[in-house]
C-alpha cells in the first residue's frame, strides 16, 4: 500500500501554483483579519467607558489567535502549503486547532454582547437561544462538522479540487477555521454559552473526536491523499498526529480544570 504508484496527472494538481488572478484570496484574508483586530480593539476600548476594563489578556488571546490564522492563510507557510503536504498540515493545525482555542479565550461573543445596544442585543440573545443554534452547537454536531469535514477533505477528491479552484480553497479554509472554533466553543465554556451539556457528555465527545483525529492521521500515513508523495504524506501525517496531541493536551487540561472549578466544595451546584 505504501509503495502504490501515484497517478502522475493528479500529481500536477498538487504542484499547481495559484495563478496571479487568484491573489484575491490572500488579500481578502489580510483585510478580514486586520479588520477583526481593529474591530475587536475598537469595541473593547469603546465599551471600557461604560463597563469595567476589558482585561489585557483577552486582547492578547484574540491577537495571537488572529496571528495563528494569518500565518496559515497568508505568507511563506501558506505558499509552501500549495507544494508540500507537511506545510499544508502545519497550517491546518494552526488554523483548525490553535487559532480557534486562542480566539475563544478572547471571548468575542461576550464582547459583542457588551457592545450592542439593548434591542439588537435582545435579537442576538433570541438567536442564540433558538432551536437552530441549540442543534448546531450541540457537541456531537460540532464534532461531526469538524472531524467529518476533515475526513471528506482528505479521503475524497476535494483535496485535489482545493488546489485547482481558489473558490474551493477559500471555502475549505473558512470551514476549517469556523468548524474548529464552534467545536472548541461547544466543549470549553470559556465564552458566552447558551445551550449547556454535562461534563460527561462533553468528555465522551472530546475523546471520540480526538480519536477520530488520530485515526485519520494514521490512515493518511498509510495512504496519503491523491497527488501527495509518500514521504511528504508520512511527514504530514506525523505532524497531524503529534501536533494534534500537543493541542489536545491543552484542550483536555482546560476542560478538566473547568470541572475542577465547578466541583469545588461549598460551590452551589448548577446545571453543569
Amino acid at each position, binding site marked *: 500500500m505504501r509503495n502504490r504508484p501515484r497517478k502522475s496527472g493528479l500529481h500536477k494538481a498538487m504542484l499547481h501554483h495559484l495563478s496571479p488572478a487568484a491573489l484575491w484570496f490572500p488579500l481578502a484574508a489580510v483585510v478580514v483579519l486586520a479588520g477583526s483586530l481593529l474591530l475587536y480593539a475598537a469595541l473593547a476600548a469603546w465599551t471600557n467607558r461604560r463597563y469595567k476594563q476589558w482585561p489585557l489578556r483577552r486582547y492578547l488571546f484574540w491577537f495571537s489567535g488572529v496571528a495563528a490564522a494569518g500565518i496559515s492563510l497568508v505568507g511563506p507557510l501558506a505558499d509552501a502549503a500549495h507544494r508540500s503536504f507537511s506545510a499544508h498540515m502545519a497550517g491546518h493545525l494552526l488554523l483548525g486547532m490553535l487559532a480557534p482555542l486562542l480566539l475563544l479565550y478572547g471571548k468575542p461573543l461576550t464582547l459583542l454582547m457588551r457592545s450592542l445596544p439593548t434591542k439588537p442585543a435582545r435579537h442576538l440573545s433570541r438567536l442564540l437561544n433558538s432551536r437552530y443554534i441549540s442543534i448546531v452547537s450541540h457537541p456531537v454536531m460540532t464534532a461531526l462538522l469538524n472531524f467529518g469535514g476533515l475526513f471528506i477533505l482528505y479521503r475524497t477528491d476535494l483535496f485535489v479540487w482545493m488546489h485547482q479552484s481558489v473558490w474551493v480553497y477559500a471555502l475549505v479554509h473558512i470551514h476549517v477555521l469556523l468548524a474548529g472554533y464552534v467545536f472548541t466553543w461547544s466543549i470549553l465554556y470559556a465564552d458566552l454559552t447558551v445551550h449547556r451539556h454535562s461534563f460527561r457528555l462533553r468528555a465522551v465527545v472530546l*475523546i471520540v473526536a*480526538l*480519536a*477520530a483525529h488520530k485515526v485519520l492521521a*494514521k*490512515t493518511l500515513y*498509510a495512504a496519503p491523499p491523491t497527488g501527495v508523495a509518500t514521504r511528504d504524506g508520512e511527514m504530514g501525517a506525523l505532524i497531524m498526529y503529534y501536533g494534534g496531541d500537543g493541542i489536545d493536551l491543552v484542550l*483536555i487540561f482546560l476542560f478538566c480544570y473547568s*470541572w475542577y472549578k465547578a466541583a*469545588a466544595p461549598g460551590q452551589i451546584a448548577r446545571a453543569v
Partner: protein
Amino acid sequence: MASNEQVAAGESAHALNKRNLWSGILFGIGSMAFIDEVIFHQLLQWHHFYDLATPQIGILADGLLNSFAWFAAVGGLFLFADLKRRQAVRMKYWIASILIGSGAFQLFDGIIDHKVLKVHQVRYHVELWPYDLSWNLFGAALLIAGIALAKSAKKERLA
C-alpha cells in the same frame, strides 16, 4: 477520612474512597500509555507508528485507546487535586490504584492490542515470544502488586 462538614457538602466518605480509586486507575492508565509512547515509540523505536499489517479495526481501537489515555492522565490528576482540597487523599490506596491501572493497561496493550487487534508488535525482526512474555508478565506483576497493596490498605483502615 472525610469530616462531617464534607459529608454535609454532599460527598459521602464512600464516594470519596471511590474517587481515590478512580483517580489512581485513570492516572495509571494515562501514565503507562505515556511511558509506552516515550520509551518504546520514541527512544527505542521498537514500536512502529504504523505497521503495514495493521487492520482498520486496529487503527480505530488504537486511536480510541490513546485518546482515552491522554484524557485519563489529565483527568486522574485533577481528581487527585479535588481529593487533596477536600483532605480526602488516601495515599496508599491511591498508589495501589495507580499500579492497578497501569498493570491493567500494560496487559490490555500486550494481549488485545498486540495479539488480538495486531496494532503493532513489541519489536520487529527478532524472536518475538520472549518480548511478549516479559511485556505481559510485567503488566501482571504491576496488577497483582496493586491489588495486594489495596487489600493491605483496606485492612489497615478497618483495623
